[in-house]
């Protein structure tokens, strides 16, 4: 309620004049009105020195500035007595800002005074709460600073400049499209993203979206700001409209897909992903989205089954190795590991079998072998590991083959504490001699070391290795017999 209105009412109700009626065309009244207008227009000037004759009254009815008032005010800084007055305050005006108070400068409460050291940073909210003690009489009057802003005609450049300095500026003045765009361009030229966004918020409110979009299409910097703002503010619908308008179909799709991150419930998430498949992704990404959906669908089935198996306690593997976490929302490779761990021997027909996963998601051999190896090695199922690398040719000979380097195989086996016999077999298959020697030495695969040195005809190294093996062991004997073998032509 503006102060002028309040005065008016008070004036009329308490006056000895007869009450006002709408059809009253009294000359006296219009005269009065006129003089009132004149007085009111003077008020701005008169009020400036804050020397009003009228006594301002606080909520409790005491004149502001009176002793009793200030005592109350001081007392209320000890928090408990706040209740009564504050609730009264709320009745009056819910948007009323916090009371400034006199308190020791050490107290945190001083922060709540809302007084800003730099007047240039004065903002609307500050202005409301910061007009000083005298001003919180019920007749809340517009802060003076605001009058200035509304009345002066800042050029677009000055407006931007003032906003950059954190001052409140009304943008309502910029009504023609031309003006709005000049303002926007000035904001962009000012390099301050905060101001650019502020102008955009104003434009968004005052322009039809097609027109705004059209103008932004040729203003990339401003466009980035609007997109970022819409993302942050969660105005998804408008964002999608904008992206569609710009023909950025891929971003439309991604932006919609992104929402699945906020869906907790797996069933709902699955449904949502299903809807994503039709979005305008690139062909490549469409298949990724399809896979995402299929994966979650599988996981839901597997999870339900396995939870049942686990609680029933019938299955040995689940008893021996209870699951640490649910498989829902895990990556494909993790799912594959899981299925190699718990469902390795299942027929291809079941959803949880590794071969089924491999086929459905076209998992490359390399990836499959690495994962299966890690899972089976973890269970110390060395026969499975062996089978993983054994191939038969058409003559029936078996041969060890791996789509990954055997040094990797060795490393994974070693990490899972494979026995030396198992390790040895794979170390032997490492092609690069130097790597083979390194690994064999590191993991104490003596036989491999000895044989490699023999192949290299390196007597010195072989002799030196003798001290690494145990005295009187089979290995030492082996070294000795090789060293004594006259047939070998040592290179040193």
């Amino acid at each position: 309620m503006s102060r002028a209105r309040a005065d008016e009412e008070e004036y009329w109700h308490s006056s000895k004049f007869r009450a006002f009626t709408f059809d009253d065309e009294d000359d006296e009244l219009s005269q009065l009105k006129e003089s009132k207008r004149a007085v009111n227009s003077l008020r701005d000037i008169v009020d400036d020195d804050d020397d009003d004759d009228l006594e301002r009254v606080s909520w409790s009815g005491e004149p502001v500035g009176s002793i009793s008032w200030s005592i109350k005010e001081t007392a209320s800084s000890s928090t408990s007595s706040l209740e009564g007055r504050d609730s009264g305050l709320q009745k009056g005006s819910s948007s009323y800002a916090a009371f400034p108070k006199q308190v020791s400068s050490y107290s945190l409460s001083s922060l709540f005074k809302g007084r800003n050291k730099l007047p240039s940073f004065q903002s609307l909210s500050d202005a409301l709460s910061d007009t000083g003690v005298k001003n919180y009489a019920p007749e809340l009057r517009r802060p003076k600073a605001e009058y200035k802003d509304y009345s002066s005609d800042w050029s677009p450049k000055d407006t931007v400049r003032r906003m950059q300095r954190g001052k409140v500026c009304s943008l309502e003045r910029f009504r023609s499209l031309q003006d709005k765009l000049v303002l926007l361009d000035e904001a962009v030229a000012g390099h301050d993203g905060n101001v650019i966004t502020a102008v955009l918020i104003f434009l968004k409110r005052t322009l039809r979206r097609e027109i705004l979009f059209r103008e932004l299409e040729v203003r990339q910097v401003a466009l980035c700001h609007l997109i970022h703002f819409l993302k942050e503010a969660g105005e998804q619908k408008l964002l999608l409209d904008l992206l569609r308008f710009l023909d950025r179909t891929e971003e439309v799709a991604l932006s919609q897909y992104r929402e699945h991150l906020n869906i907790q419930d797996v069933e709902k998430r699955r449904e949502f992903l299903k809807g994503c498949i039709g979005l305008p992704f690139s062909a490549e990404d469409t298949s990724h989205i399809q896979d995402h959906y299929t994966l979650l669908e599988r996981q839901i089935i597997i999870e339900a089954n396995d939870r049942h198996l686990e609680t029933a306690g019938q299955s040995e593997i689940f008893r021996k190795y209870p699951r640490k976490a649910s498989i829902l929302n895990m990556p494909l490779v993790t799912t594959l590991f899981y299925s190699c761990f718990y469902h390795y021997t299942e027929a291809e027909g079941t959803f949880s079998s590794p071969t089924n996963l491999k086929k459905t998601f076209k998992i490359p051999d390399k990836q499959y072998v690495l994962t299966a190896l890690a899972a089976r090695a973890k269970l110390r199922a060395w026969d499975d590991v062996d089978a993983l690398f054994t191939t038969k040719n058409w003559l029936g000979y078996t041969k060890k083959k791996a789509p990954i380097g055997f040094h990797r195989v060795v490393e994974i086996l070693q990490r899972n504490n494979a026995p030396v016999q198992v390790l040895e077999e794979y170390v032997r298959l490492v092609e690069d001699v130097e790597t083979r020697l390194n690994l064999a030495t590191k993991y104490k695969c003596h036989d491999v070391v000895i044989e490699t040195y023999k192949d290299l005809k390196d007597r010195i190294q072989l002799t030196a290795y003798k001290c690494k093996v145990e005295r009187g062991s089979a290995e030492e004997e082996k070294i000795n017999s090789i060293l004594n073998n006259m047939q070998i032509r040592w290179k040193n």
Partner: protein
Amino acid sequence: MSPLDRIANVSILKQHEVDKLYKVDSRPALSTSDQFCFLVRPRIKTMRYIADIVNADKMSGRSRKYKIIFSPQKFYACEMVLEEEGVFGDVTCDEWSFYLLPLDEDIISMELPEFFRDYFLEGDHRWINSVARALQLLNSLYGPFGKAYGIGRCAKMSYELWRDLEEESESDGQGRKPEIGNIFLMDRDMDYVTALCSQVVYEGLVDDTFRIKCGSVDFGPDVTSSDKSIKVLLNAQDKVFSQIRNEHFSSVFGFLSQKSRNLQAQYDRRRGMDIKQMKNFVSQELKGLKQEHRLLSLHIGACESIMKKKTKQDFQEMIKAEHSLLEGVDVRESTSFIEEHIDRQVSPIESLRLMCLLSITENGLIPKDYRSLKTQYLQSYGPEHLLTFHNLKRVGLLTEQAAGETLTAVESKVSKLVTDRAAGKITDAFNSLARKSNFRAISKKLGLIPRVDGEYDLKMPRDMAYVFSGAYIPLSCKIIEQVLERRGWLGLEEVVRLLNGNEFSVSDSTVEDNPTWESQRVILAVFLGGCTFSEIAALRFLGKERGCKFIFLTTAITNSARMMESMIEAKA
């Protein structure tokens, strides 16, 4: 440690009647207090959080006072949200113009890690004003900068906005004796390569391994060899750390063991002391020795823990792959190394980092590799990373080689639609999108890969390449070195072109008249989008070599992991 801890810790806040501290973003604060004070960054999400609290209080008829203190400044969008949520007026707002946090004697951080994503990914200019104000503040404290250099769009805009502020304010800085002679502003996207490399100087390694937050690190039980974690401030005050922070990791062990021997010797001196000497020893030296002892054992523990972690991760092999990428040799081998890294699910962040390094050094991945690595990545680490790939493509960290051509087509199509002036802007915007890194050509031009005969002596480094084991001179630092040497961009035209321009070099005429030698030797290096400890070490080294001193102003300390993480989409 948070920036607030560095300024006002809990006990100081308690002295000032703060009843309890809550973290914004977690659960609603349950408090019986009558006053809430929110000290926040200006974020829309945070405004909603606050509005929820205020509205919940209103519903339950509770009356409190609310104060929001925005740091470093308030954004209009935040006020708009408060208004929309119907709490405008219920809360009062203030600004805490907190721009500079001195992390150390020569490092000032703005502690704005979000700068990187906001500017380079979203193209939002919201922090440029903060950078300009930080410069204004420094200017008022240390007098005018004699010479200003810079490269990058953001550098240029920040500089312009700062000059604007300066002219208007007629600050007291003018007429002051200049203490900082040179300032160099650089955008992070001028050099992603350096930020993507594994760090091997001690401070960088500690940051990569344990994460230094606000100049402090939490050493866990594996370092302290007890069951407690210890918070340690890492700066020049730490006598042990200050001597090893800039060293290559391989030299650190030797130093630490030498140091422990010295310490032992000093302890040993107490044998054969008479009672008076002993009294002196205990009262004067023992405390210092104990302190040193404590620090030594901490850093030795940290080294051990780093070693353990790195051997587990095939660090040697990874460094080898990185060096090959930097040098541009054995690219196929490195590609398969990365592929295997992904397949084995070693680490989602590291895998991303390696892919980005491959992309930047090779001017984008060939489409076949891009598809296959992307597919494998999604399979290993989760399909939602589709969004991460999109982001990385937009900032130009991970691109497909053909992408350049298609964008040029769009670009020309759009350009036709608009007037000349605007077209310039558009081309710029598209350029930043499609920008090729040109790393190989730049590297050749600036000689970033040192030709080494024999072993590079890491203990006695001869150039800045030591921060990457002698394999690569950080591009960002090399540019700074060259420009300072030439006192401008003259002769670097080709490099500037490859970096996509936006360079500048301005002398302040008022200062140039009487250059004081002392100030001439001080350079403020400003990194927009973050700088790494490796870069800091390299420039400290350069400063020592050239007899000058670098001071660092960065929007935040960064490293490869932070950069990658900032590209990942999180749920709202």
